[in-house]
């Protein structure tokens, strides 16, 4: 019975990681940059949600919309001002800038709100508790998993069926050819960042409903874990991020349950190191050689 608990908890955490991982993977796919600041965008989302719920007393559904919109815009703004000018520069420059943006977000939030953790309200207090296989499962757990799957399904449809989705795939494959086909690369990149950020903030709300405390560094760990998930699945590959997220969440949860909580962090790092050393292209990735 406990295995099922751990498994479901793992799916819940994995859903959150998957949603965040999608942002990393889509951005990497399209501009070949690891968006160091992505986890912190997620954190900003949590703060926006807090603000909406407490200061504006918005209902949960409105909070979600407002948060996703805000972070989408934030993602686009960051890309335009910090990353776009460096598209032709050395990789090391873009990486350093991303670190700068990450720190900037953390420190701005610290100064505007407070460096101390803030409590997050629990709008799901009255929600029913389900019973699956003799196990008590909260609405949140079910809701997280279901919501994540729905979003991922919508994203997949978007990527495969819409023009913008196809544009995103085209730019990821071959930017030069995409330009020749008349695709507006800048818009496509902006949309990618917008979607990735919005998904991350949705994940932030799911996360914060489960762990109702927010602080300026809260994006670091989930961000790093989501990054590991993206790498595990194959960075740049969207189904990879989804699968990687789930796998990582379950692995982490099982480790927490059967070994220890401390060890679970180590396991996540360990997976990262193993993947980077033995199959850097990830589960779904292909080896791409540099053309000499």
């Amino acid at each position, binding site marked *: 019975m406990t295995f099922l608990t751990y498994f479901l908890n793992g799916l819940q955490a994995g859903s959150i990681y998957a949603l965040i991982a999608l942002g990393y993977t889509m951005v990497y796919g399209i501009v070949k940059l690891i968006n160091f600041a992505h986890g912190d965008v997620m954190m900003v989302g949590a703060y926006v949600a807090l603000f909406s719920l407490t200061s504006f007393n918005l209902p949960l559904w409105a909070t979600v919309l407002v948060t996703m919109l805000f972070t989408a815009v934030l993602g686009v703004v960051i890309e335009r001002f910090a990353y776009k000018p460096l598209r032709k520069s050395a990789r090391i420059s873009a990486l350093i800038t991303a670190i700068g943006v990450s720190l900037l977000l*953390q420190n701005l939030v610290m100064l505007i709100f407070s460096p101390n953790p803030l409590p997050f309200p629990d709008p799901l207090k009255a929600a029913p508790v389900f019973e699956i296989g003799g196990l008590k499962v909260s609405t949140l757990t079910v809701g997280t998993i279901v919501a994540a799957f729905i979003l991922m399904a919508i994203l997949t449809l978007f990527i495969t069926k819409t023009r913008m989705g196809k544009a995103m795939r085209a730019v990821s494959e071959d930017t030069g050819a995409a330009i020749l086909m008349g695709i507006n690369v800048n818009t496509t990149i902006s949309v990618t960042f917008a979607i990735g950020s919005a998904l991350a903030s949705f994940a932030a709300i799911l996360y914060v409903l489960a762990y109702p405390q927010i602080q300026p560094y809260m994006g670091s760990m989930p961000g790093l874990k989501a990054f590991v998930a993206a790498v595990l699945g194959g960075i740049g590959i969207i189904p990879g991020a989804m699968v990687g997220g789930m796998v990582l969440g379950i692995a982490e949860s099982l480790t927490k349950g059967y070994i220890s909580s401390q060890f679970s962090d180590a396991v996540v790092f360990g997976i990262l190191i193993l993947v980077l050393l033995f199959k850097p292209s990830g589960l779904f990735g292909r080896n791409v050689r540099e053309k000499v």
Partner: protein
Amino acid sequence: MKLSKIQRSYLYNALAVVGVFIVLYVLQLTGLIGRYYQGILLTLLINIVLTVSLNLATGFLGQLTLGHAGFVSVGAYTAALISLRSGLPEAVAFPIALVSGGVVAAVFGIMIGIPALRLRGDYLAIITLGFGEIIRVVILNLKFTGGASGLNGIPIMTNFPYAYSIAVLTITVMFLLIRSRHGRAIISIREDEIAAESSGINTTYYKLLAFTIAAFFAGVAGGLQAHMLFVIDANKFGFIYSVDIMVMVVLGGMGSITGSILAASILTILPELLRDLAQYRMLIYSILLIVLMLYRPAGLLGRHELSQKILGQWAGRLGGKKRTPTTPDSPEA
């Protein structure tokens, strides 16, 4: 005795180094530089060692590594443990502790470098970040390193002569290494790794070499810190500390030793002068990083070294005033 141009420049540099030492030492002895500023001076010298060492891996080799603080930590703890547990008299233990700190950090450098340096760019950065964090967490969980409370009671042995000598040694070794065929090999990897391999450079070896030497000096710096702070705690040597050092390297110029000295000085002294703004430090640093990368990625000196030529140029630009340039630390050899 007629000296060659190179020998003359070595002589000038040596004289300048000794001269600066004497001046600063006397200023401290006579109390013109008070205790508070003496402490800042020590921190400055340690920061110079840290920045110059990281610059070898990031500026000259061209690989962004985000786990440098981990090596500092390893060095600090090793040195502290030797001073605390070896039973040797403090004055004897201290130099041994420093060297050991460097050596153990270098060993970690090799262990981490061998797997990590197979990766490039973003991935290398992340994996070194990961290793830095692993080091931190492991140290916090080991009993003999004091666990979460760290180590205390470390004898205060770091003084101006020690710190100055080590800083000068680090700078000298870096210069001499860079201006040798081995230094050129390291730089060629930054410029074009494939071309370097095709020119006969064993890139794996040289990447590891640069990484390990950087780790060594970071470890020595850690030892100096431990014997200055009396107390060490692995949490102080986390990612933020790695970023602190990185900001200094980036500001000074990735690939300029004198740039690193300059930037380390600025970023040690300025936060002291602007103590009221301490809570904004990381905010300012983050903006600095972004602005630098967008508008002046070369930092202050880029890949050039502060030399008589450049000082002369700056003096000229400042309004045509003819000024005799001071002898800087860069040999022409």
